């Protein structure tokens, strides 16, 4: 009962936040609201018992991507530039609504949440449930699948994420030749005097 109430209220907050992001003309406010959106999604995932997804959502959505978008905003220097609502989004709105209706229609055939007779649970899931602990020694089945059965896949993902992280750091972090840097103390001194 209480989980239903929490789910409904959190989903209502999600909808309010999404509308506020769309309607907002301040880019900084949009980024902050994106952070709140990620926190709400993570809470919903926790309530729905998807702990690993929730953890990823909180770390990447609320933590990293907020900072990355803010860094981009600072680098592109349009902090106070207003977004215009001049375009007419009716075609996009129609496409989105039709796609959403088709997707909702598609969910009607999906078996219930956690249904043991669902097709996804009939083939390899049974094997993992029976053999994951004796074969890998990992008590959590999801961890056993990710870290042992799909170990090379996870290793490749780690390489991809590491490469992406290095690329993002090079794009956003490495600019030593601007006036506001440590390598030029004279300009910093002057700027400091101007500020004080």
């Amino acid at each position, binding site marked *: 009962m*209480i*989980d239903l*109430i*929490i789910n409904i*209220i*959190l989903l209502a*907050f999600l909808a*309010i*936040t999404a509308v*506020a992001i769309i309607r*907002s003309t301040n880019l*900084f*406010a949009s980024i*902050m*609201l994106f*952070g*709140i959106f990620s*926190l*709400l999604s*993570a*809470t919903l995932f*926790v*309530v729905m018992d998807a*702990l690993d997804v*929730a*953890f990823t959502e*909180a*770390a990447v959505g*609320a*933590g990293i991507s*907020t*900072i990355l978008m*803010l*860094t981009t905003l*600072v*680098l592109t220097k349009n902090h106070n530039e207003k977004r215009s609502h001049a375009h007419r989004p009716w075609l996009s709105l129609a496409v989105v609504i039709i796609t959403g209706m088709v997707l909702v229609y598609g969910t009607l055939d999906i078996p219930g949440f956690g249904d043991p007779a669902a097709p996804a649970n009939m083939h390899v899931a049974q094997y993992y449930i029976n053999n994951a602990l004796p074969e890998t020694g990992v008590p959590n089945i999801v961890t056993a699948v990710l870290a042992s059965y799909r170990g090379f896949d996870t290793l490749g993902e780690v390489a991809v994420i590491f490469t992406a992280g290095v690329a993002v750091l090079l794009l956003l*972090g490495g*600019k*030593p030749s601007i006036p*506001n*840097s*440590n390598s030029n*103390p004279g300009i*910093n001194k002057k700027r*400091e005097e101007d*500020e*004080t």
Partner: protein
Amino acid sequence: MFIVVSLAILITMGLALARAIAGPTVYDRIAAVNLFGTKTVLLIAVWAFISGRTDLLDIALVYALINFIGVIAVLKLVTVGDFHSSSVDETDPAKADTE
């Protein structure tokens, strides 16, 4: 009792959301996001006791860490401008105070 607590936390989340949407200055919004993250931690902790899965408390602690580091990074970006000129600009307020 946990139900009442969770409802109170949800109401507080709604207030923080209203401040994040309406907040006129940058710092209102940062404070609202920080408050929202704290309420998320509390809601997950309460949910751990409602559902009886106390291992969620560890997740709540990690959320608190992420929230803290994120807010620190956002504040540094807003006040300083970027990450690498921090050692110069961070000392500016201290110098201004001592002078």
